[in-house]
């Protein structure tokens, strides 16, 4: 395209077949509409500025005007039929997967984070990846859209349009990236207090790297190796953390909040709110309410030593 709109979430910066098809259609749509706008405005200014004549009130003038209005209406109808046709053609196959995808991922909306659940026939190979959707490059991935609380909307503008996540209703859609990269997405349906901080990352990788990632995700959490990490694990198990979060391979098994088995390897914290760095993690654990007011995680008044140990442990969950 001639020029791009800036920013990470531009609909006109497509990196997948769906977004590309929409962007091409969108450009035509905008160009046609801009052209129509300028034609109508030109007629409008001519109507205002033209020199008035004695013949203006004659019936012949009226007849000519009627004819011109008729032509304008006919052109409008033709353009609209063109737009409708182009829309239907561009939309074909965009909304639901045309064939079997390489993999199927459940997209589950929560107030205010995302859970991506990777299916497998072996139950022990099923795993979840909160707020980070990993997909292999160049193949369609089927997404099953659902929600456990209110309505959210899954939207990654570089790759695809929106799909609402509606409680009580499961719908299928699909996503595909053509180039490796990290694509940002964001909840697009107002879902309460922290709607603004409900982002996600789509990580598109070549198939072999993706499979490597999947194998790693299936493994339980790594055991703490240093004394500090061991102490951190004890802190985790004895503090309120354990009431909401799960870490596979440990006793922590609650699914209220995001799973933390491999939290250390993720790009962001708190649904794209913060980069995943030690300082941010500390701030988040101690008082997440100052960062994302209204979120469901309570503040944790930990002793400084305990906090450092906990940070070491959580960071070690690679």
């Amino acid at each position, binding site marked *: 395209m001639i020029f791009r709109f800036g920013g990470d979430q*531009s609909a006109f910066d497509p990196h997948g077949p769906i977004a590309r098809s929409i962007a091409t*259609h969108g450009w035509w749509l905008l160009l046609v509409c801009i052209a129509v706008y300028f034609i109508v405005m030109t007629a409008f200014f001519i109507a*205002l500025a033209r020199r008035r004549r004695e013949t203006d009130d004659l019936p012949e003038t009226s007849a000519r005007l009627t004819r011109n209005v008729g032509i304008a209406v006919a052109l409008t109808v033709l353009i609209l039929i063109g737009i409708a046709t182009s829309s239907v053609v561009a939309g074909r196959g965009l909304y639901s997967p045309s064939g079997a995808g390489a993999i199927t991922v459940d997209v589950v909306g929560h107030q205010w984070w995302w859970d991506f659940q990777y299916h497998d026939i072996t139950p022990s190979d099923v795993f979840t990846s909160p707020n980070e959707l990993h997909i292999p490059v160049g193949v369609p991935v089927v997404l099953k859209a659902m929600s456990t609380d209110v309505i959210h909307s899954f939207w990654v503008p570089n790759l695809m349009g929106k799909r*609402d996540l509606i409680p*009580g209703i499961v719908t299928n859609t699909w996503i595909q990236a053509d180039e490796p990269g990290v694509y940002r997405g964001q909840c697009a349906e107002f879902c309460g207090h922290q709607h603004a901080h409900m982002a996600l990352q789509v990580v598109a990788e070549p198939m072999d790297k993706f499979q490597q990632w999947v194998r790693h995700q299936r493994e339980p959490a790594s055991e703490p190796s240093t004394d500090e990490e061991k102490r951190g694990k004890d802190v985790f198990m004895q503090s309120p953390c354990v009431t909401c979060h799960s870490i596979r391979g440990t006793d922590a098994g609650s699914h209220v909040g995001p799973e933390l088995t491999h939290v250390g390897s993720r790009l962001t914290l708190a649904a794209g709110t913060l980069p995943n760095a030690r300082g941010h993690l500390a701030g988040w654990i101690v008082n997440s309410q100052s960062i994302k007011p209204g979120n469901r995680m309570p503040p944790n008044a930990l002793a400084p030593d305990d906090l450092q140990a906990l940070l070491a442990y959580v960071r070690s969950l690679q």
Partner: protein
Amino acid sequence: MSDFVHPIERRMAFTLTSEERLRRQLADTWYVPRGIVGWFSVADHKTIGRRYIITAFGFFIFAGILAGLMRIQLAVPNNHFVGPDLYNQIFTVHGTMMMFLFAVPVMEAMGVYLVPLMIGTRNIAFPRLNAFSYYVYLFGGVMLVATMLLNTAPDVGWFSYVPLAGPDYTPGKRADFWAQMITFTEVAALAVSVELVTTIFKTRAPGMSLNRMPLFVWSMLVTAFMVIFAMPTVVLCSTFLLLDRTVGTQFYNPAEGGDALLWQHLFWFFGHPEVYIIFVPALGIVSSIISAFTWRPIFGYPAMVMSLVATGFIGFGLWVHHMFATGLPALGLEYFTAASIVIAIPTGIQIFCWIASLWRGRPRFHTPLLFVLGFFAIFVLGGLSGVTLASVPFDLQVHDSYYVVAHFHYVLLGGAVFPLIGGIYFWFPKMTGRMMDDRLGKVNFWLFFIGFNVTFFPMHILGLEGMPRRIYTYPDSMGWGTLNLVSSLGALLLVLGGVLFVYNVVRSYAWGLVASDNPWGAETLEWATSSPPPVYNFLHIPVVEGRSALWNRSPDASVVTGIRSDVREVLLTDVMDAEPVTVTEYPEPSIWPFLCAVVTSAFFVGSIFTPWALPVAIPPLAVTLIGWFWPKKRDHAREMEEHAGDGTVPPEGRLRALREARA
């Protein structure tokens, strides 16, 4: 004049000329009561209409201030001016108030004020219901303002999607206030619509057949019908919500077999016609202003009328384009794409006819016309962005993004508020007897026009760059900061324009040039009477001889006679041709509609807290309704007198006289 003279008139014929005598008697009969009780008893459509308009502009200013707060919050990334809790309340109340308490009521208010004058009758039909509707609307609006000031306002968006607005995710009373505010305003809107339909169908001046009705009246008729068919749906769905929240029904709870999508269908089945309910009256205003400032009738009247009516019908077939992302079957979505695109045709026809009108006429660039020209530049763009939104694939990218925010401000502010402000400049002399300052008006227009575009145009680009709606802040790294700042600075110009408008209204009301009956030389009947009109509107009900009531009037135009002036008697005509049919009597002013509105409002507010409000409210409601409909003692006496044959004739006989007078 007919040879029929009422005996009371005959008795009074001492010294006054008959005109002066009639004037005094009509003023006596159609009196507007005074005093505090009187203030709450008024049933005159002009007084109620004026109060409606002023109240609606009050809410407009309040909601506008909220918009200003949003623009401050979004001006820079990661702003902490307001937090998420307050921001969510602010955008919810802004949207709710603009839609339900400003845009719809102010358009209906214009109808309440202008329609009886434009069609040549003495008052709106069901005048007491009209007063009742105003107070119910006022109380509902005040309730919403109060919740905002008490920091307990609804915070789930003007669309209140479930389950977010349900009992599980919005505990407390915030969503209940929203649901009941809907009930308040919809009761008011439905009442006004019934009045308008009746007024337009049954009380037009003789000769004003349907094909001679002014386009503004047509637009109000279409709007009123749309309200009657659309609003019950939203009352239904908001009442379901209230029941879910207060008595434990499960309409919207998927866990108990309810359906979250049911809300969206019901809400948008109302919500999409709603935007046409706001926009169609504005089309009527545009037509009125263009014809007055080009001194030509609007080009293509039949096409204009058909377009209005078509808009009214098609407007009900588009609601799913608000739900393209929900995952409904693709074939169904494409039907709604087609329907959404089709509605551009009647709108296009009207735009082309107006351009033809401007082409043929000799435009005089006073403030009202400037606002209409601004409407063209803004609305055509908004309409075209609306066409892009009808395309499912494109919509999936821009849905719920700032592109949509830009689009609907272009069609609602540009499509409805610009004509409305133009309409205020246009009809201000009729309503107050004084002209608004044209020089200030032009400054006002340019502030609005430039401010509007600077504020809202960048939002198109923000939406295409992926900025979603309803977020209270955004990270610096998204690159949305500059355009948001530009938008916020534009809002400053809009505020200045708003202040100037209010200043101009106040100043002109006090010191404006005194207006003649028809200062613009316009064509419709409201300009035939004095500025401001007398309480009884017209000394003689006119007989209409053409589509442009005043321009087509012959010098010896006949007027209707035989209508009693000692009681509030009104001529009823038939629906198609406005042939006189009979007369009816409108009720006197009464305090009961106000009391009934107080009880109704107490019931609505009470039902937020307990379902027992309903049984408790029934007895006082019954009392006020009995008071409201209590028959007058005089009625019986008059009936006897009319049939006694003591020089008077029964209504049928008088109407014969009437028809003769026309012939």
